[in-house]
């Protein structure tokens, strides 16, 4: 039995399909990167997986149990044991870092000491243990990332969805965060679904890849296959740009 099964998932917005017949099976411990330009349907896919929105058609199973289907959300997001890091991080500005991180946990657990212990533990793992009392607005971009990551991982999810979480960071910072994500994923063995339009970071983090365009899958494969594919595209791009700049001379 697979952890996550997607079967013929379709989503329409006002008669336009943004996700067309998407099927895939994913297992615990896998790192899957979904690559595509904005508007290719990757964010919609994440939102369907998380249960924030229902699919228009198709079926979604977690551990063999149907969680979305028939155009409806059957199991609500918080019962799926899924976490998500949003593109804009969605840190709540009025809550402290600590409160941001243990927001979900304090609904499930009443024991304050345990909450505190778990919060500190994850904060240490992502490296923001000194910032717990501060408000998100005082943090740097990288620190905000780490808070969002900590918040997503504190409840030990089976699946972690990441929606272009690193797009606003500079390259060095990105590397450091990627390192943290990878080490945590190796340690905790959750299924990581990582969505990005920047294939370098996607290539770093993923081990299985899906390239999408206009709601459809245009390429699937392992790192080697996808890398070759992407490089061929890049090469074509290079030739075209050289032509352009040459033409200007």
């Amino acid at each position, binding site marked *: 039995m697979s952890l996550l099964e997607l079967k013929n998932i379709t989503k329409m917005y006002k008669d336009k399909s943004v996700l067309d017949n998407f099927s895939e099976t994913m297992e615990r411990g896998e790192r899957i990167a979904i690559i595509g330009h904005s508007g290719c349907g990757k964010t919609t896919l994440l939102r369907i997986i998380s249960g924030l929105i229902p699919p228009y058609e198709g079926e979604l199973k977690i551990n063999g149990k149907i969680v979305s289907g028939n155009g409806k959300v059957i199991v609500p997001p918080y019962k799926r044991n899924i976490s998500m890091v949003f593109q804009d991080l969605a840190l709540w500005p009025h809550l402290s870092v600590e409160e941001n991180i243990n927001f*979900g946990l304090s609904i499930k657990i009443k024991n304050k000491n345990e909450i505190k212990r778990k919060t500190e533990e994850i904060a240490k793992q992502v490296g923001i243990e000194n910032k717990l009392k501060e408000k998100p607005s005082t943090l740097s971009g990288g620190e905000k990332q780490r808070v969002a990551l900590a918040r997503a991982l504190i409840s030990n999810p089976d699946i972690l969805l990441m929606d272009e979480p690193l797009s606003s960071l500079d390259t060095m910072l990105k590397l450091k965060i990627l390192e943290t994500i990878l080490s945590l994923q190796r340690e905790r063995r959750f299924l990581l679904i990582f969505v990005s339009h920047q294939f370098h970071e996607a290539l770093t983090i993923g081990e299985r890849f899906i390239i999408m365009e206009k709601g459809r899958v245009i390429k699937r494969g392992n790192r080697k296959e996808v890398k070759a594919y992407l490089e061929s595209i890049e090469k074509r791009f290079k030739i075209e740009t050289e032509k352009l700049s040459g033409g200007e001379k």
Partner: protein
Amino acid sequence: MEKKTVIYTFLGIFVLIGILPVVAMLLKSVLSKNGIDLSLYLNILSNKHQWTVFFNSFKLSITTTALSIAFGVLSAILFSKTNLPLKRLFTFIFSIPLFIPSYLNAVLWWEIMGKNGLMSKITTPSIAKICSHFYSGFSGSVFLMTITYSPIVMLLTMAYLNSINPSMEEAALLTSSWKRVLLKISIPIVKNGIIFAAMIVFLLSFGEFGIPVFMKYPVFPTESFTYFSAFYNFRLATALSTPVVFIILLVLLIEKKIAKQQTEITEYPNAKKPVINLKRSKIPVFTFILFSALMFYVLPILLLFIKSLPLTNLFHTLSDSLESVKNTITLGLIGAFSATITGFFIGYGISKNIIQKRESGDFFTLFTFAIPSTVSGIGLISLFNNGLTSFIYNSSLIVIAGFTAKYTLISNRITRIGINSIPPSMEEAAEIEGANWLYTLKKIILPLTKKQLMASFLICYVFCAREPELIMLTLPAGKDTLSVRLLNYMANGSESLIASLGIITLLISLVPVIPAMLLLKGEDL
């Protein structure tokens, strides 16, 4: 699911207490023994006089709105963007007229501008004559209504100006003078806020009754009112108040035309806001503002205060009206709370597309706001005064219902600004974390819209505290509020009694304003 339940519950309450009573009145005005009878309406439409009065009302409210925008926006810029000294104090002083029932305001100014008023004592007879001539009819109404309603524009514009992303102004300042930045960047960004304020002022002045009556300027509300007061003809009176519907439609249309895109208002608490340095004009501007503050805002209040002296008299009046003070505060607080909450949920429903028809939501909240209190009051009586719901009619709940219906508009619009500025991901993140909607509401949405909620609450409180008509029609016998008491005694009561009641009413209207100002100190509203 629970989200929808909550929102539809509030929507249902609003329909029940706001729309049904008025619709019942409207139905009665078209139904007669022989079925549908539109003759009343046809009569009104074909009556030339009605059109004249309608045009008067229109002229009056348009002029008032235009002047209020001019003064309100100018003072908002001065008080929120410049380095003018004492600007907080001025903001407060300029808002005072909003806290007093308009009829009292009219009488107060009569003491200054009237035939035997202050002006006749300190100036030449010819100037006094010009003053008293000015203080009547159209000019007098415009003058007083602008003083009364321009604070609404000022306060709302300030709230919006304070939430502009400073970098937008800074970017423009690199290439342009402040004048250009204000005209091309700041004001266009807060345009929607100004339009909203203008809308409120327009509707309030269109429905204003006390001031035009005092000034002997025939307007539409007095027409409808005459049919209530002289003929007790509810059908005709209701029919006469329906042009309000056209006015609302017009207002909505204009709003839709100019306020097309929703400007995104976000908070930048840590960024330092650029300040306009008045430099050499600082002293003249300050002198001018100080003079206007003293002349137009402090003087009438001072006069009122002097008339209420000695202090023992003031205390005596206070101890006599303790019950009314209590009622005013309690009804005001509960009314404002209820209107704010209802408006918030309807606003949430509209901005999250849970209430599908946004236009009709906007229409109905405007409708209950603009319809004359006499119509809605009598509608409430006829709907709730029966064996089944008399527990509502026989208690203060009926007044709360009336307030809620009337002022839902305010918080519906203001809190929507806050709700729209919360990124959807904030709520989704909470949902994924396992929070149900009510928990998300409590922990995320309400705290993030705190400022807008508080602003709506304050505005609603002030409106509730100064409103006499609805209370007169619906509050159970044996109770009154300060505004009603004041207007009761204005008939033949002694000057000092009226003055002391006026002072007390003003102070009580300020009750929640002062702690709120202290609470928000340092922060901007």
